[in-house]
């Protein structure tokens, strides 16, 4: 039986994991490689690195991070943040990432999904989507870009379907409304998209407790749950989350 994935997201700025991560263990919390190894050993199923510097001149640093991470962890990981061309996709994939994630740049230039999928295979191309509640849109959600600052005329569900037909292999649905609240995922948009596309959907934004993860798997049919602060701050651990889900009969990878 296919297992539900727990994905940890790490924000990287100029080659360092950003502040706000607290650990009791003796590891350098600013070092993305050590952080990745820590979660890998804890049994995380996948990692996501967001390059929040995301400028061309800093890209080289991120590539070095990706290459170093690839030498230490042997699970899939993806890289996102400002990727705007297939040349940049190629760099990230050749450095050892399993997937690349495109968000604002895919809205500006949807053909990047198509080009990326035909060059590297659709399993490599992840669409990251920031959705904002807006009743004037058919699905009730509008796509926003640039970290939520710029509204678009894209309807979230239509964009998800279009990205799938262009060749995206997976969609990360990030709720701008729920992001940072720790009040739970936005179940409505996650479920709507997950039921409407044939590719895996990752829920993102709003996870604060274990119950939120359980809920997004059972009520919104998410294939994977993206988490960040709830583990970065040490409130929960990956093994703790997995054993909770397992007790609730959610299939998760428990022996690693």
């Amino acid at each position, binding site marked *: *039986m*296919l*297992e*539900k*994935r727990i994905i940890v997201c790490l924000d990287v700025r100029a080659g360092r994991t950003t502040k706000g991560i607290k650990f009791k263990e003796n590891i350098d919390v600013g070092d993305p490689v050590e952080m990745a190894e820590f979660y*890998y050993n804890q*049994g995380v*199923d996948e990692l996501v690195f967001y390059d929040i510097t995301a400028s061309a001149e800093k890209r080289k640093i991120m590539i070095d991070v990706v290459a170093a991470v*690839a*030498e230490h962890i*042997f*699970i*899939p990981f993806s890289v996102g943040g400002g990727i705007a061309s297939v040349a940049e996709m190629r760099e990230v*994939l*050749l*450095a*050892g990432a*399993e997937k690349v994630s495109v968000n604002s740049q895919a809205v500006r230039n949807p053909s990047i999904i198509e080009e990326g999928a035909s060059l*590297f*295979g*659709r*399993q490599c191309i992840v669409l990251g989507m920031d959705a904002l509640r807006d009743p004037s849109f058919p699905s009730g959600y509008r796509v926003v870009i640039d970290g939520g600052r710029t509204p678009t005329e894209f309807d979230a569900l239509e964009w998800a379907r279009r990205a799938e037909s262009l060749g995206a*292999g*997976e969609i990360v649905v990030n709720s701008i409304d729920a992001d940072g609240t720790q009040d739970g995922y936005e179940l409505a948009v996650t479920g709507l998209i997950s039921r409407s596309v*044939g*590719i*895996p959907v990752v829920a993102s934004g709003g996870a604060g407790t274990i119950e939120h993860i359980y809920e997004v798997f059972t009520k919104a*049919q998410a*294939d*994977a749950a993206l988490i960040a602060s709830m583990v970065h701050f040490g409130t929960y651990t990956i093994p703790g989350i997995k054993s909770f889900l397992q007790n609730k009969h959610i299939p998760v*990878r428990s*022996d*690693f």
Partner: protein
Amino acid sequence: MRIAVVDYNAGNLRSVETALKYLKADFFITGRPEELRGADKLIFPGVGEAKAAMQVLEETGLGGAITEFYKSGRPLLGICLGSQIVLADSEESNTRCLGLVPGTARLFPAKAGFKVPHMGWNQVVHDGKHFLFKGIPSGSSFYFVHSYYPDPESKEYCMAGTDYIIEFCSGLCAENLNAFQFHPEKSGKYGLKLLDNFINAGTTVC
């Protein structure tokens, strides 16, 4: 023991390379058929489309070199697309494949609530007898990403099974050839264990 990793421009070899480095394997990556002849073992990875992959294998002569390697009796490990290309054919673009193992790579049937590609961690069930699974409990999870699955003509070619939409053969075994649909190089400690078993195996014959 030198291991050749076949580079036929099908996807990214980087993760196989980093895993083999981590395991301190003696290996080299090559796209030249003549260089395969000198290897003691061969790893045949690959992600991508069957027809495009077969085209490259035919144009470069690598397909013939892989078949020759197989016939020589030396251990050969296929990964992902590598487990489909060794079959007689694939439903993907109706492609004729290498034909080392009788069977077909088939597209998963559509089923409500199941997505294709099959992407993520799933359990691999095996009888524990084969050396490659030494130290790996049956039912351990491995990482999969694929839309087609190997369907060998006879069960005797199947050394591992996985349940997704249907029960499919996630591990092929034919004499000195072993091929897995999942990615051991992306499957944590059990994936590394499987690769390490391959590196250290005297023989991999089923």
